[in-house]
């Protein structure tokens, strides 16, 4: 019985992993397709304008996976909380299972992107030279960021599910702030729709400071979600 969260984590990983595999395949097809089109003179100008080819494969995957993690976080309460509680799984087990499966997913997809990059670079000459050292050093940061995107989505999910519009909009603001601060600390320069004034800030103190900040932010977000989820009423619809 005590292993229920493990079962739930396994099922969540398989479900979300299947979706992620489709996403990876789509990104791979798009990426290879863009490079093929680049060799067609009539299309080369357009492809150059999209900027797709300046990215290495892993960078492209990383951008896509962050959005994917945000989306599955937003779906969490609506798709999984109801299902698990309906099958008699406690909210605590759902909470643990969601964390473990999201971490595994963030690691697996980033690792897959990381594995494909040298293959495409070395064997097919796509995406420019590949630096194992630099990519490997950044991998934990990529995983951590993807997980923070999941937490941001989960906060939005909990906000709307538990407190409807009022909680939902506050949660959106909190999630955007979380993502913007993460971006500033890591200096990833990702597009940020709000809090643009924060883009002027530069917290960059090195990777360790950014990692410590990310861990604190993660702990805070997990504490807030835990508090909201442990006695959350499940809707009957």
């Amino acid at each position, binding site marked *: 019985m*005590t292993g229920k969260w493990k079962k739930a984590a396994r099922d969540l990983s398989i479900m979300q992993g299947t979706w992620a595999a489709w996403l990876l395949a789509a990104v791979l097809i798009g990426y290879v397709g863009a490079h093929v089109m680049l060799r067609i003179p009539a299309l080369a100008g357009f492809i150059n304008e999209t900027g797709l080819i300046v990215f290495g494969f892993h960078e492209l995957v990383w951008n896509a996976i962050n959005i994917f993690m945000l989306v599955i976080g937003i779906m969490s309460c609506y798709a999984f909380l109801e299902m698990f509680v309906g099958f008699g799984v406690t909210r605590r087990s759902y909470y643990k299972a969601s964390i473990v499966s999201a971490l595994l997913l963030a690691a697996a997809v980033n690792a897959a992107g990381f594995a494909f990059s040298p293959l495409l670079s070395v064997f097919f000459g796509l995406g420019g030279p590949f630096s194992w050292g630099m990519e490997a050093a950044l991998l934990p940061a990529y995983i951590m960021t993807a997980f923070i995107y999941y937490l941001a989505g989960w906060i939005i999910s909990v906000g709307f599910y538990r407190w409807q519009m009022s909680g939902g909009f506050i949660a959106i603001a909190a999630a955007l702030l979380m993502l913007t601060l993460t971006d500033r600390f890591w200096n990833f320069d990702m597009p940020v729709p709000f809090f643009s004034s924060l883009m002027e800030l530069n917290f960059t103190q090195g990777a360790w400071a950014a990692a410590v900040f990310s861990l604190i932010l993660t702990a805070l977000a997990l504490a807030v979600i835990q508090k909201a989820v442990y006695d959350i009423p499940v809707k*009957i619809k």
Partner: protein
Amino acid sequence: MTILQADNVKVSFKREEVLKGVSFQLEQGNIYGLIGRNGAGKTTLLSVLASYRQADDGKVLIDGEEPFEHEMLMPKVAFLYETDYSDETETALVLLKLAARYQEQFDLDYAQELAAKLELPLDKPVHKLSTGKQAALNVTLGLASRAPVTIFDEVYSGMDAPTRDTFYKELLEEQERVPRIIILSTHLVSEMDYLFDHVIMIHEGRLLLNEPVDALLERGFSVTGSQEKVAAFAAGRNVISEQSLGGTLSVMIFEELT
């Protein structure tokens, strides 16, 4: 023997008190009919029993322990209601298998057998099933769960009459095979009353009645006959309804026939 106890359960939504201190005790081996008008608080009560929400005050106990967030007790309650399956892209078979993974008592072979009886296609995505077939899926999930506390909240409304009839027969047979606490919340009282061992009636968040069906039936009777004779018999008695057609009068009297 499983005992489910509600002790002074209160639930409020914002300022509205939906359950105003409901208490009762349910015992394994009985089918309970939960009856009440729309908005009486039936679904709220059931969602508290199923740990879908916590009571604001009072307690729910299963065998003396609170089931809310109890790893062992939560799977002992199966709660089936009219579910919105419009986003459910998995097949019915996947959902049955998932239920079997989490509910220890779930019998997957029986679920598949029952699905065949109810003509429920197991290989189609659930969102593509008709309302009736989705209701059949809920009924299958509930009966095959073999959970010591099995709750059906109006799940049968979408099913056609022959399928409902199959469900009623199966419910009685299943209760013989694996006796449990079964709660049926319904508006189809006249169609389902023969299933009930016990009736619980709530009105405006309060428990109005909690009695075995036999005792309840003894508390009232109806008389039909010529207008004059029936009117004379009913005079001075507690008449709760009457209907007349031509020279015939039918009255329902709420008191014991002596």
